[in-house]
């Protein structure tokens, strides 16, 4: 790496760290000014039928100043000047709270930048401290680490499960909480399904939402036009989605990673455009509505049922509450998601699961061992698609309405983000990531338009910071010598 220099009288002198950091920050600020100035500073507005520009330079200028200080703090921290970095971070937070900002976004940015700077400096210091104290890990250390990790995984997983089961019974469990929880679990199920395709088999599917859509629309049409019940339509939806998976997968699975990604993306878009335009079949942009809602084995969740039908609350001897339906849906999706989870855990120990992981590692070696790569990949693809189909059926019956809007590429990207953040192949990691990401999107609902902006930025940050995900450890599926750390 070249040392920052400045030319004085024709001789190049190396800059002292503070000045180098300053130069760094100035360059970044100038670049930011050139980038953001035109796009953000000159806003096109419709005035009197004609397009003209509004100047918003104050906001841009303030943003540039923020960028400058943020980058300065970062650069100082990188060069070991931790105290000034903390100072700038703290200053930003204080300024964030005290100064009158022309836009709420800028205030949030200031505070966020300050906090991030402080955390980063602290993390850097901690890293240095750890490195200084590090010694070569012994067998004993390894065994202890293994045991700890195993306990943590089991403990956390168990805790989550218990929390999920108990959630609807909590006093604070209102309609909003339950609906959010249902959303989280739906995405968790989809992410576990996609995890089979990407995490285990290593096939980058960017059009996973297509199978979700197939399941949803299949269920909608079967239940609405042909009177199928949920448990009757569910397997058909899954089977149809799996068939689409095989249909799509068969020609394209021999493509290399990037190409496969784009082709699956294209397929997802094709499905969406067809659903949007084939109005006779799919209802076009208006979708399909009034899909029969799920009942409790024939007992609907309504206050007053038609003649001869006993509503759920009456069956249970309770007062009618709109929460009953939500609670039932919650447990339903919990069960469905857990089915996917247990399936994955089990199939990893079976030959096909190991073959998936081996294919992900080295396809040529697999061929040399007599494994048929096409069949093996197709199986992963089809099974992943099937689970997406199940999730789609659930979605259709809970929303009672499906339209192409719910099945955009952004949904695929969201599910992908959950799988990647969780650590591809890690069940617990994916679960945590689903809670985190969906939880955050809910928490930031107030920020409306900035939500997706932060999401995109978040995706980049995750990859740059921790490309392997939160929990990237892989446990072997079978042990010859028994568990380590167990005497």
């Amino acid at each position: 790496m070249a040392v920052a220099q400045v030319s004085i009288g024709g001789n190049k002198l190396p800059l002292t760290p503070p000045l180098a950091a300053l130069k760094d920050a100035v360059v970044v600020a100038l670049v930011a000014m050139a980038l953001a100035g035109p796009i953000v500073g000159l806003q096109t507005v419709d005035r009197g039928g004609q397009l003209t520009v509004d100047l918003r330079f104050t906001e841009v200028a303030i943003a540039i100043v923020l960028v400058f200080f943020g980058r300065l703090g970062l650069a100082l921290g990188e060069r070991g000047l931790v105290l000034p970095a903390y100072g700038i971070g703290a200053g930003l937070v204080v300024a964030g709270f005290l100064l009158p900002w022309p836009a709420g976004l800028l205030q949030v940015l200031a505070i966020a930048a300050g906090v991030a700077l402080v955390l980063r400096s602290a993390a850097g210091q901690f890293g240095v401290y750890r490195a200084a104290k590090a010694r070569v890990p012994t067998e004993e250390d390894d065994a202890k680490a293994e045991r700890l990790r195993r306990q943590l995984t089991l403990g956390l997983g168990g805790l989550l499960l218990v929390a999920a089961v108990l959630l609807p019974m909590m006093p604070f469990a209102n309609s909003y909480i339950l609906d959010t929880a249902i959303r989280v679990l739906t995405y968790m199920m989809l992410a576990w399904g996609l995890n089979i395709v990407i995490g285990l088999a290593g096939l980058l599917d960017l059009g996973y939402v297509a199978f979700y859509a197939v399941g949803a629309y299949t269920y909608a049409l079967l239940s609405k036009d042909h009177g199928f019940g949920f448990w009757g339509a569910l397997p058909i939806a899954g089977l149809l989605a799996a068939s689409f998976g095989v249909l799509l997968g068969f020609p394209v699975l021999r493509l290399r990673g990037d190409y496969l990604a784009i082709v699956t993306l294209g397929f997802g878009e094709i499905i969406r455009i067809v659903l949007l335009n084939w109005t006779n079949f799919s209802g076009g942009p208006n979708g399909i509505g009034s899909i029969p809602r799920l009942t409790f084995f024939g007992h609907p969740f309504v206050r007053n049922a038609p003649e001869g039908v006993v509503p759920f609350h009456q069956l249970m001897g309770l007062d009618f509450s709109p929460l009953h339906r939500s609670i039932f849906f919650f447990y339903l999706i919990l069960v469905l998601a857990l089915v996917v989870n247990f399936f994955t855990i089990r199939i990893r120990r079976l030959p096909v699961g190991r073959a998936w992981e081996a294919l992900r590692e080295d396809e040529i070696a697999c061929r040399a061992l007599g494994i048929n790569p096409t069949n093996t990949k197709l199986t992963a693809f089809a099974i992943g698609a099937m689970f997406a189909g199940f999730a789609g059926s659930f979605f259709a019956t809970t929303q009672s309405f499906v339209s192409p809007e719910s099945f955009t590429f952004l949904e695929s990207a969201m599910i992908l983000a959950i799988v990647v953040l969780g650590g591809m192949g890690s069940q617990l990691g994916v679960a945590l990531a689903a809670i985190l990401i969906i939880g955050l999107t809910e928490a930031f609902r107030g920020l409306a338009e900035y939500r997706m902006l932060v999401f995109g930025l978040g995706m980049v940050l995750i990859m740059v910071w921790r490309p392997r995900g939160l929990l990237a450890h892989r446990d072997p599926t079978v042990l010859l010598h028994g568990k380590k750390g167990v005497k």
Partner: protein
Amino acid sequence: MSAPLLKVEHLTMRFGGLIAINDVSFEAQKGQITAVIGPNGAGKTTVFNCLTGFYKPSAGRLTLTRPDTGRDYLLERLDDFRITKTAGVARTFQNIRLFAGMSVLENLLVAQHNRLMVASGYSLLGLIGWPSYRAAERDAIDRARFWLDRTGLLARADEPAGSLPYGDQRRLEIARAMCTGPALLCLDEPAAGLNPRESAELNTLLLMIRNDYGAGILLIEHDMSVVMGISDHIVVLDYGRKIAEGTPAEIKANPDVIRAYLGEDDEAEGAVA
């Protein structure tokens, strides 16, 4: 006289205008170690790739006769994975291709994939924990244990394959190939990067495979201590053609072979004349 394990007839491989292998014919017998040697670029790995289905030969016939069933397989017509699955040809690679993130034991279990798939009822029986599958898995682990023992890797069975030292990785690759239950084992430069002690251990392992297990071995190698030490039969290639074939003693004395490896000695020629 029983049929040879492998019969290569008039094998030719062309890449566009370049002829990599030109009308090469040789045989490998079961229960023997056949070495394919020659200077770099002679086409040895290309022969392997044709044999194992990674290239489709431009011309020629490759016949594998399985000793246990007596059936013939035309390798030039089969897909690469089918060659391993049905014909029983296993191989190792010049640049080791292990499943680095998986444990040593898992690598050996992946090698027994086909047998286990059938036993697990294509996963359906396996999913519900059917006893016949569990028995098959135990057998597979026992077979893996056997080969781990023979290659000295038993203690490291649960470690990630990628964390093994280089020599161990090479041996693991051989153990993994043996777990597929092959009739013919093709080794691409198994001694590359091994020190003399490790090469001697490799010799012991290969001899054991030949004697106790009974597989035929086809071997590409540059390390003459390995080649001369254990081969029963040697085929020499140069510039894509076979220039000699015979026992180690015959090959050592063959003037064409010497010329291919060491080049012409003009002075000596002149002096003789």
